[in-house]
């Protein structure tokens, strides 16, 4: 069997891989075969029948030779019935015709059937103008209707706050139902009734209980499912559409913004482009409202006594520059620190650190403001195998075994989660989820294994896994540096038998051994970790343990890495690459050692750091200890903040620069698979706001630096020239999907195997405080619209029913959580996904303010919980 097939479609012969569907082969041959029910991410269904074509094979005589007709051409034996192109795979020598009388009549017949019950309400339908049914009716349909009978009708329904359903328009292609089941894993939609009365709805006709991602709207080929936030807002031909990069998580989905005037009216997926194609999560699809928020800052602000007063850009920049210079001269450059920047473009990140290191002369630069211990960029790089080529988001669907360490991907990387769900459903990916809570991916539906470790036992679990891997045999082909550490590691891990690990973590010994075996055996595997580890107080030990796990399981080899770090922000990877870290400069080149974010926090609170520049970061919310951050802001002589909004952090600043949103500037974003993507300007910057790089340049120039960048692209050219890992890249190759960087030389990280020690006690006492990402909110931008906060509802403290019983609280009761530095009170939510002895509060909620409790230390943070209203149980 040859790997490719030659297929002749409408007389044009093309060569396509064996197993290609006729509809896809037709694309290669430049022949249009329409589709409705077929979807690139769903297995063939063959329901709508619009793709019917004639298929035939050359007729052969008894000796197997092709029969020739009078003109000497091979005679084709056409199949008696038309076939659906979306379910027929090509065969070598196959002939397909789409324009023969039979094909055309069949297609027109199906088109006519599709319109039998479809209402003629295109003028008021949101899909009108970009409706596949409308387009194909023009292309293939009759110009009049033979159907003059009454159409069957349904009532329209609002399926929750984002989905509007007009079932009359539905052509029952089942894309929405299948997408929801197979890719979102939510099963929120179903078809009621049958035949012509088939109607898509939720199972109980109640508002959809799901991720509210709106992908059902995206994949609907007609106007049956439309987005309520966009309802009757615009006609698609009135919109300018710009494909850019989503500003939320580190998956870096391509998002198509629909802009009219200076208003962003909607966001959609890109159908065929981007890492995500049509997929967007709820934040990406409905989280654009902040761009047009009336609360955006439109003028720089300067402190005059107790109040912040509007100022011109030039005077603000000059003031900031002169104060920075003064403080640096008076107290040394080391009294200035630069914080934040994980949401900036690569160009801005580069200039931010250049401003710090080259202009001000301070080594104190760190973008990772949420970290609770000193974590170097070098350690983070080492844990994922240095500059070795890493796993892609696409590889999540094709791996055999995926181990997810500590992160709830529903909040941290919804697209990565969707890839895993699809991979599990369609390609049999096995999931192992090591998480104290039963997160979505640990649900029985996905048939994975849930290693429900006790909070605070993360290091113990990884040590146990490593020891179990060692028992399966020595790892082969270790780089010399790693091999050197093997003996020492073996000794250190000797005590971590599966039984002891079970004792320490609560994960059954058998489950641990099985997980180790799956990981070792799988040829294609991915280990995923994220902020749950890097923001952990034991982060250095955990990163070493992840690396140990990588080398011992084969997830790290000398050639490539299969460890994926899902960073907390959309450009966390760019921030590392550009050296927004205290130990490396751009491209991971060693730099003078500075203070890390938690160290800057302490130094500023102690008065050792006197000037802070905070960009794109609501520091009071993100710093691990709010009390300390408040004190730091109070004591600093100069606080400069770049933000879109007047956050509580900005209110305490001396200078506030209004920043442009992601949609208003150009630049490069690097996602978690280290792919560079170009963000485009969809609308002009809001009047008064400026892209951050212009602010940095203005201040640098005022400080006497000879910076002459005319555009952000100028900055990128300098990066491509000087930073090894990006050498040779240019903007022109990044529309919208750019290359993924990997450079084992420029970003060489020494491989090592070393014991990961734990055992320090947690801060505080009482219940373990579990925190993590949540779906509907991420970062301070997501509060600024109406929809996301409405979906997220109020922050709650989730407790296991048993724990609630013990504390004498019921659903909705106020619960006071008391930590070492303070307390917060939140309503209780009963949730059996949370383990006993713990309380879960997502950190994205503005009102939750978990950092008031105090900074986690050692194994984590424990809090005393009690009913806040004093009513005894």
């Amino acid at each position: 069997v040859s790997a490719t097939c030659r297929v002749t479609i409408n007389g044009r012969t093309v060569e396509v891989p064996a197993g290609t569907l006729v509809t896809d082969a037709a694309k290669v041959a430049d022949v249009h075969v329409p589709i409705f029910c077929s979807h690139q991410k769903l297995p063939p269904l063959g329901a709508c029948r619009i793709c019917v074509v004639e298929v035939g094979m050359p007729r052969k005589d008894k000796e197997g030779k092709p029969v020739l007709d009078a003109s000497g051409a091979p005679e084709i034996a056409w199949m008696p019935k038309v076939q659906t192109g979306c379910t027929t795979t090509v065969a070598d020598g196959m002939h397909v015709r789409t324009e023969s009388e039979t094909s055309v009549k069949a297609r027109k017949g199906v088109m006519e059937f599709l319109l039998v019950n479809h209402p003629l309400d295109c003028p008021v339908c949101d899909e009108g103008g970009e409706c596949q049914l409308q387009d194909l009716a023009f292309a293939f349909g009759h110009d009049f209707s033979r159907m003059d009978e009454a159409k069957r009708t349904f009532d329209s329904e609002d399926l929750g706050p984002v989905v509007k359903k007009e079932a009359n328009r539905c052509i029952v292609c089942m894309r929405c139902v299948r997408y929801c089941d197979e890719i979102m894993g939510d099963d929120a939609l179903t078809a009621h009734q049958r035949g012509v009365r088939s109607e898509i709805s939720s199972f109980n006709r109640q508002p959809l209980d799901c991720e509210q991602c709106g992908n059902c709207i995206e994949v609907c080929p007609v106007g049956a499912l439309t987005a309520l936030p966009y309802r009757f807002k615009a006609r698609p031909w009135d919109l300018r559409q710009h494909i850019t990069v989503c500003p939320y998580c580190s998956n870096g989905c391509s998002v198509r913004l629909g802009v009219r005037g200076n208003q962003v009216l909607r966001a959609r997926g890109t159908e065929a482009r981007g890492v995500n194609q049509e997929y967007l999560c709820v934040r990406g699809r409905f989280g654009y409202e902040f761009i047009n928020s009336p609360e955006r800052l439109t003028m720089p602000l300067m402190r005059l006594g107790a109040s912040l007063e509007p100022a011109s850009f030039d005077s603000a920049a000059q003031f900031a520059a002169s104060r920075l210079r003064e403080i640096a001269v008076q107290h040394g450059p080391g009294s200035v620190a630069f914080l934040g920047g994980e949401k900036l473009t690569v160009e801005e990140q580069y200039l931010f650190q250049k401003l710090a290191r080259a202009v001000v002369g301070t080594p104190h630069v760190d973008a990772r403001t949420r970290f609770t211990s000193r974590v170097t960029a070098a350690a983070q790089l080492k844990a994922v195998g240095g500059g070795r080529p890493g796993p892609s988001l696409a590889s999540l669907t094709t791996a055999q075994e995926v181990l997810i360490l500590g992160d709830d991907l529903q909040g941290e990387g919804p697209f990565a989660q969707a890839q895993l769900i699809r991979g599990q459903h369609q390609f049999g990916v096995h999931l192992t989820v090591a998480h104290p809570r039963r997160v979505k991916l640990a649900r029985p539906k996905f048939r994975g294994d849930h290693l429900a470790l006790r909070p605070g036992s993360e290091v113990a679990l990884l040590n146990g896994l490593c020891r179990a891997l060692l028992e399966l045999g020595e790892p082969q082909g270790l780089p010399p540096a790693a091999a050197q550490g093997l003996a020492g590691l073996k000794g250190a891990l000797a005590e971590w038998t599966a039984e002891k690990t079970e004792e320490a973590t609560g994960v059954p010994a058998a489950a641990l051994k099985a997980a180790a075996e799956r990981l070792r055996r799988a040829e294609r595997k991915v280990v995923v970790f994220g902020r749950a580890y890097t923001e952990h107080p034991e982060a250095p030990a955990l990163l070493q343990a992840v690396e140990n796990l990588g080398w011992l399981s084969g997830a790290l080899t000398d050639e490539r890495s299969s460890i994926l770090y899902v960073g907390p922000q959309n450009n966390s990877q760019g921030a590392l690459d550009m050296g927004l870290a205290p130990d490396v400069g751009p491209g991971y080149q060693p730099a003078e050692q500075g203070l890390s974010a938690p160290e800057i926090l302490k130094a500023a609170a102690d008065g050792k750091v006197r000037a802070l520049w905070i960009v794109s970061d609501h520091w009071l919310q993100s710093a691990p200890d709010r009390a300390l951050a408040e004190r730091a802001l109070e004591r600093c002589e100069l606080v400069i903040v770049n933000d879109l909004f007047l956050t509580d952090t900005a209110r305490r600043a001396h200078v506030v620069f209004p920043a442009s949103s992601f949609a208003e500037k150009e630049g490069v974003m690097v996602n978690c698979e280290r792919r560079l993507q170009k963000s485009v300007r969809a609308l002009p910057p809001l009047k008064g706001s400026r892209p951050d790089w212009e602010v940095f340049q203005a201040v640098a120039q005022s400080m006497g630096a000879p910076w002459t960048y005319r555009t952000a692209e100028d900055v990128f050219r300098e990066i491509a020239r000087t930073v090894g890992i990006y050498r040779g890249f240019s903007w022109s190759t990044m529309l919208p999907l750019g290359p993924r960087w990997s450079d084992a030389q420029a970003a060489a990280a020494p491989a090592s195997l070393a014991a990961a020690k734990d055992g320090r006690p947690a801060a505080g006492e009482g219940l373990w405080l579990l925190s993590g990402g949540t779906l509907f909110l991420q970062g301070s931008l997501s509060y600024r619209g109406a929809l996301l906060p409405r979906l997220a509802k109020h922050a709650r403290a989730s407790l296991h029913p048993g724990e609630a019983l013990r504390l004498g609280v019921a659903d909705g009761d106020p619960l006071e959580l008391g930590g070492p530095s303070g307390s917060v009170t939140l309503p209780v939510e009963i949730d059996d996904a949370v383990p006993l002895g713990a309380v879960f509060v997502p950190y994205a909620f503005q009102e939750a303010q978990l950092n008031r409790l105090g900074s986690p230390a050692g194994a984590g943070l424990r809090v005393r919980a009690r009913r806040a209203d004093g009513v005894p149980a």
Partner: protein
Amino acid sequence: VSERGPFLFKDIDTPELTGIETYRKGGGYRSLEQAIGKKSPDEVTEIVKASGLRGRGGAGFPTGLKWTFVPRQSPKPRYLVCNADESEPGTFKDRELMEKNPHLLIEGMVMAGYAIGARVGYIYLRGEFETIQRILDRAIGEARAAGLLGANVAGSGVGFELHTHLGAGAYICGEETALLSSLEGFRGQPRLKPPFPAVEGLYACPTIVNNVETLMNVPAIVANGAAWFRQWGTEKSPGTKILSVSGPVKRPGNYEVPMGLPLRRLIDEQCGGVRDGFKIKAVIPGGSSVPLLPASMLDTGLDFESMVAAGTLLGSGGVIVIDDQTCIVDALYNITRFYEHESCGKCTPCREGTYWMSEVFERLESGHGRERDIDLLFDVSDNILGKSFCALGDAAAMPVMGAIKHFREEFEYHVRHKRCAVNRRRDEVRETTGATA
């Protein structure tokens, strides 16, 4: 030879045949005991293959050949499923067979399961067959108690377990892949073929789906051999066939006849001819899904090949006799409404086409038909035919196209006179209820 039939119906009316004792007295389970563990599975398959037994559910696929499609190397468990979702309008043979002789089905299933290497079998019953489910469950209990089902069938060391499952009332679940979806707990909708059930069926494991009557043929074939079975029927359609005759014949009901018997002899000899005062206008020979035969073609033989040659199908053997006082348009309207109601909604042509057809029929019947409606009806049917996902669409289209071909003047009469030429059903309804139906 019993009056009701030479083979399956020979002793069907024996009192208490549903009990295992009576069944065993008549030689029941002897074939099973002689085959399981004594003949190899391949031998059993070979006998069935040689007998030429063809599926009795409608398609007439050779049963033994189907059994060989189970992949031999597959490590997955195999399943045998009995299609007892008898829903074809005009067909009621499986119902009587199971009501009266449940043990024969069990014996047939154990042997078929043995032949294909299945250890579990399911009987998928149509939703209305609650009584039959009770009968079967009782019989299964008896067989299990007698050691004929379970971990060690008849002491052979071979295991076979059997379960009944009641459908939820959908015609489409008689289509084998829809049946499997329903059995798995999903929406009863047909699946894409290939993969065929023999390769990936129930729970994506190799599965053979056979009709009740087919499976009941197996024990006697294995016991008596292929040549014995071929004493009935034609070369290509051996054996007997049970036909369910309905309509204005003197003795409607189930009849077992050798394959190839002319349709006319079935009606005249077995059923005693049509009732006085009626003449045959047409006959639907194989359940409502097949095109009708006009009265001029009554000499066609009741076997798969002759029926195809006559432009119709033997189908499931539901012989519906239509008399000269029945309105063909009304009859087809009735059938079309059935398909519109039973269309699962998966594919466009069947879902929308059957709705459109029944709307046009309603207009014709209510006296508002137009000349062009007849061609429209034909063209709509033609647009369904061969374009639908499963055979249900074809089943809805073929009878209508056949009727228009053979009885176009009746359709034209509706357009010109705005009423039916004759309509016994409506007259009878009016007489009994006083209403205008």
